[in-house]
């Protein structure tokens, strides 16, 4: 295990609910209360709250590792323990080399100082020496795109500019282990792309990255291995695709459903020839399999599959009826299984699958399952948007001929001499 750069063993972190004694005035009565034993041990135990419980994982040099979990799962606590802001109640953390975090990248800024001064301040806070900052100063300013405002106090900055400057400084610290937490939601689209490119190049240059995010597509894209955290415990740890699959299936069962419906969708899976997957390359083929089970006899059914994008906007739907299958009938205790074959003409993004069981004629649903599965599409760098129309460039030529006749524009006339 010479290659292990980060080793986390059995860490647990306990917090106390409620208020601590924040003044001496509160402490004195509380201590006397303790002395005379009028507070039971059980009550103190009840106030304890474990934010993390027996979490262990290791990250190898040059690896990108993801941490996924809902709100309050303990992700931020892990990062705080890794950076050393807090110490675990139990367990140990071993890091080889400099660890640096792209977390709270503007926390070190001082409102009254200018952008230039803040670059030095924040750089030093994040662990650079003055000489290093001086060397990278131009690169930092250039990355942030704030050349004109570098001598303006940051209190006059917009919140986007503030965050961009913070990220730019943080992105130029070269750590052995980089911790990233949701910073990629900073700035506009172009800046986000820049940040992502930077992250990729950091990883390519052999840095180790621990990435905490809700942006599962990015995690799927960057990290080979991940762990899913729930209520402070590790649910799944392993290849990112499995972990993301587990994340999406978490809390889906049992699904709320109408008790008077005795036919229901039991499984929705997205897969390729090999088996279930969450990440696909644009342009290939993929399959969606839907299974339904009937408790009593149902006639005249059709299965609808719909794909929506991350904003729940419908991208595409199809159904057995339109594909030529007739009305489906299920007898009591029979199971239906349909597999749709689809072309991946989608641009890169996150997509969800909705499945419906409709009445053949009226199109009223027997059962529906929204966001039953989620998958990511990568590739298709030429396309932006939701779909790819498989563009080809047939002509792109510069003509030698002289300037074509352009009608004189009044704007040109309006320029005074």
């Amino acid at each position, binding site marked *: 295990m010479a290659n292990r750069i980060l080793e986390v063993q059995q860490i647990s972190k306990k917090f106390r609910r409620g208020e601590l004694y924040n*003044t001496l005035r509160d402490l004195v009565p509380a201590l006397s209360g303790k002395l005379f034993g009028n507070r039971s041990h059980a009550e103190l135990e009840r106030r304890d709250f474990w934010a993390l419980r027996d979490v262990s994982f290791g990250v190898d040099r040059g690896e990108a590792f993801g941490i996924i979990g809902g709100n309050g799962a303990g992700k931020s606590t892990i990062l705080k323990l890794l950076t050393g802001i807090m110490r675990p109640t139990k367990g140990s953390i071993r890091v080889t080399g400099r660890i640096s975090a792209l977390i709270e990248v503007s926390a070190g800024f001082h409102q009254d100082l200018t952008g230039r001064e803040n670059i030095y301040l924040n750089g030093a806070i994040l662990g650079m020496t003055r000489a290093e900052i001086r060397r990278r100063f131009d690169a930092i300013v250039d990355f942030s795109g704030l050349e004109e405002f570098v001598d303006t106090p940051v209190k006059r900055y917009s919140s986007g500019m503030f965050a961009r400057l913070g990220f730019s400084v943080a992105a130029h610290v070269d750590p052995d282990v980089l911790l990233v937490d949701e910073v990629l939601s900073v700035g506009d689209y172009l800046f986000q792309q820049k940040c992502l490119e930077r992250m990729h190049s950091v990883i390519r240059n052999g840095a180790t990255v621990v990435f905490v995010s809700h942006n599962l597509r990015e995690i799927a894209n960057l990290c080979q291995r991940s762990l899913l955290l729930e209520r402070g415990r590790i649910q799944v740890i392993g290849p990112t695709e499995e972990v993301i699959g587990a994340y999406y299936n978490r809390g889906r069962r049992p699904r709320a459903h109408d008790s008077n419906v005795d036919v229901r969708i039991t499984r929705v899976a997205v897969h390729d020839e090999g088996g279930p997957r969450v990440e696909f390359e644009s342009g290939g083929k993929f399959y969606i399999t839907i299974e339904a089970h009937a408790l009593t006899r149902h006639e005249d059914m059709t299965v609808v599959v719909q794909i929506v994008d991350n904003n729940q906007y419908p991208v595409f739907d199809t159904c057995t009826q339109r594909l030529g299958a007739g009305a489906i009938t299920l007898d009591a205790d029979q199971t239906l299984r349909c597999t749709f074959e689809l072309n991946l003409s989608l641009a890169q993004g996150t997509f969800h699958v909705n499945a419906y069981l409709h009445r053949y004629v009226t199109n009223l649903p027997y059962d529906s399952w929204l966001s039953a599965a989620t998958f990511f599409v990568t590739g298709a760098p030429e396309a932006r948007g939701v779909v790819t129309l498989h563009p080809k460039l047939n002509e792109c030529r510069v003509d030698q001929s002289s300037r074509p006749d352009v009608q004189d524009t009044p704007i040109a006339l309006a320029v005074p001499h």
Partner: protein
Amino acid sequence: MIQAIKELVERRDLLYIMTWREITVKYKQSVMGMLWAVLMPALIICAGLVVRYAFAMVSGKSIALFDLTSVAVKAAPWAFFVASIRFGTSSLVSNTNLVTKIYLPRLVFPLAAVFSQFFDFLIAAAVVCLFLMAVGVGWSVQLLWVPLILATLVLLTAALAIMFSAASLFFRDVKYLVEVLLTFAIFFTPVFYESALFGSWAPVLLANPVSPLLEAMSSTIVHHQSPSLAWFSYSFLFTVSLLIVAIHLFRKLDPYFAECI
């Protein structure tokens, strides 16, 4: 302890920049600018003159020049001590953002507070020097003591600032306690008077580790005599042991800072 110092040496640029931040921020958007550094010692000197004048009236002697110079020499270090402790005590709490969000050796907060006040002290000291030259206090070999005395004073101040900053992080009313102590401390410290005035009670006053340092300033600069070696060593040893205890305690408590602040 050794590890703490090693970490600080490694991050000396951070300490430098944090000190620079405190100084810059203080003088940005202020009307008086550097005059602030001189104001506090000047007020203390004025107060000292009033006290000296009252002493002179009571004892029936007229006020001597060295009364004035000795008060001036002690006022500037005292102003530094008071301001550093005050500023240092709140240094962790006022940087809550950094304490809870980013890891850095937190000793830099109280230390930067003390060093930035030392910058102010240097300005005030320059003014006092001009004054001393103007009234013709003169030079002597004894002046070589001054750097050592000042270094001890800075370390003593740093030790106290480190302890109070950690204490006020856990208990906010420590700040008020420190305020009260600082307000009355001038009565128990020989700034306006000499401890010799109290005769056999003088050691009680000198037990305050700041007192021997101030007296040493006055005796080396104004009277051109070497300081009381016994009392100076007392202050020095006190400072060193307090510093060790302070850093040790601070590091013990460090892991709880982020969650208790």
